[in-house]
């Protein structure tokens, strides 16, 4: 049936056909000019508040605004060189990279393990999934506040638990050496890039793996690992690539948890790049802030380009 109709011209083409000599307005706006009414709100907001600012940021990053004298002068790359002379910024980059190096693999491996454990039909599995997925909806600020209390050096519940197993009280967030590691722990637990989030994504992908194969695997214990390696893992590969990229991007964009818990401290030990940018905006140092965001954006775009190239090469060899 449908093959008969598939030959018919599409409505938009049919509408355009009777007018071989187009009216000027149509020539300017295309075959269905009214389409612009459909996209206009989206176009205004996305171009105005996402595309234009990208160029504007570039301009700001080579300017120096004096908020008191209200003057703006061109300073070339001085903002960038100032940035790299600022130990707080190089510290911020270092903290961000350490955080990402710990957070990305832990969240993905943890998410995969959790998804594999949740991907079976046993009693109470609905309850288990609910409990495991609930942390995704917790806001990052709440999570930051909550963990700063759990890991409080004086009355935190974590020290109570350590106390019961005979370990002395830890300084936790009060110690610059431990604070960054605790941020990793806190962000593994909740928010839009936590372990549970990875598990949701993996579980969705796992449920697309043909049932017969996983059933066969659960009966024949000896083949379980082999099935995982040769059937499950390849099926998960695209999702895995996506998650590595997604988790890395969100690790580099870490802000909310820091805002809710340590506010960069103690000292500057948990100042990450986005927090650094936030502070420069608050201090009206637009030039440095814009330069810093371009450094972050450059890193992120290089990463995305790399992932895209890798993906394309894989597709070509496949």
């Amino acid at each position: 049936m449908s093959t008969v109709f598939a030959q018919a011209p599409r409505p938009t083409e049919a509408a355009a056909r009777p007018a071989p000599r187009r009216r000027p307005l149509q020539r300017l706006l295309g075959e269905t000019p009214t389409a612009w009414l459909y996209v206009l709100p989206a176009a205004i907001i996305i171009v105005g508040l996402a595309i234009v600012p990208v160029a504007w940021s570039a301009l700001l990053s080579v300017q120096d605004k004096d908020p008191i004298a209200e003057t703006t002068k061109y300073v070339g790359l001085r903002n960038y060189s100032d940035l790299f002379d600022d130990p707080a910024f190089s510290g911020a980059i270092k903290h961000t990279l350490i955080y990402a190096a710990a957070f990305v693999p832990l969240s993905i491996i943890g998410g995969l393990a959790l998804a594999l454990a949740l991907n079976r039909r046993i009693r109470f599995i609905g309850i288990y999934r609910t409990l495991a997925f609930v942390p995704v909806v917790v806001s990052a600020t709440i999570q930051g506040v909550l963990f700063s209390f759990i890991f409080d050096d004086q009355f935190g519940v974590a020290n109570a638990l350590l106390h019961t197993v005979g370990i002395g009280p830890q300084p936790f967030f009060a110690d610059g050496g431990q604070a960054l590691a605790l941020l990793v722990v806190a962000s593994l637990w909740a928010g839009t890039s936590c372990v549970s989030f990875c598990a949701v994504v993996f579980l969705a992908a796992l449920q697309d793996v043909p049932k017969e194969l996983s059933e066969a695997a659960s009966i024949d214990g000896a083949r379980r690992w082999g099935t995982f390696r040769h059937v499950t893992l390849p099926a998960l590969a695209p999702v895995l690539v996506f998650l590595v990229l997604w988790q890395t991007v969100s690790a580099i964009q870490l802000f909310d948890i820091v805002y809710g818990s340590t506010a960069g401290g103690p000292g500057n030990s948990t100042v990450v790049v986005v927090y650094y940018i936030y502070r420069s905006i608050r201090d009206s140092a637009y030039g440095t802030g814009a330069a810093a965001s371009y450094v972050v954006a450059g890193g992120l775009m290089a990463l995305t380009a790399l992932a895209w190239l890798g993906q394309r090469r894989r597709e070509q060899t496949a």
Partner: protein
Amino acid sequence: MRRRLPFDPWHLVLAPVCALLAAPLAWMALSSFMNNAQLNRFPPTIIPGSLHLDGYNYLFDNAALPTWFLNSAIVSLVCVVGNLVFCSTAGYAFARLNFRGSKALLGLMVATLIVPFQLTLIPTFIIMEHLGLIDTLGAIIVPSLVMPFGVLLLRQFFLSLPREVEEAAWIDGCSRWKILWAIVLPLARPALATVAIVTFLLTWNDVSWPAIAISSEAHDTLPLGIASFKSRAQTNQSAIMAANVLTTLPVLLAFLAAQRAFVRSIASTAVKG
């Protein structure tokens, strides 16, 4: 085979892991019902002997919590409605209508997905300042009124719908608007739910842009209010915990009520976004 086993060994893995994942939330709820004396003891109390409402009382007497709550609700509601309307019209135009510039505009929307949000922060702040929106809810709402991910998600969905029904309606003399409203959107309910849920989650929980755009307490959203409240009332832990509970509760209830839709939207944003 499974039926003969009275107890699946996976329970031994799943029960402790899930308990661990739920523990921080459970402790948050418990500690909101303790008073500060109970909370400041060492070693700390995990299970309180008696329940207190000190935190909640303090919050309702001294904090602007109802205002923050209302602000958050307004922002989320307006953004959800805005995204549903504007993302579906734009997504439909990209999927079905031929217009000049559609490819370029679509490319720009995809590009915004890889542009890190920090890059746009400062110019957006300046634009909002010129519009006179800084320190109003408008400054939070406007940039989130249309999210590119929603446009792209709905475009993908519309592309996957069979064209035949729309063509039949078109031949019968149905207008584009009517086709979109009466045929396409009812079919797109699952995708619209995804857009609504994700928009709600993001706007309800967002703090990085609001932290920059809002400076007075009367215009704080919930997360902002709580963060400022925390730094002012560091010692009043039970009140802060009560505030945490009240912030999390709406999202939690929404999650429990529509768990399937929630999980599906999270998964599909990830895979299609």
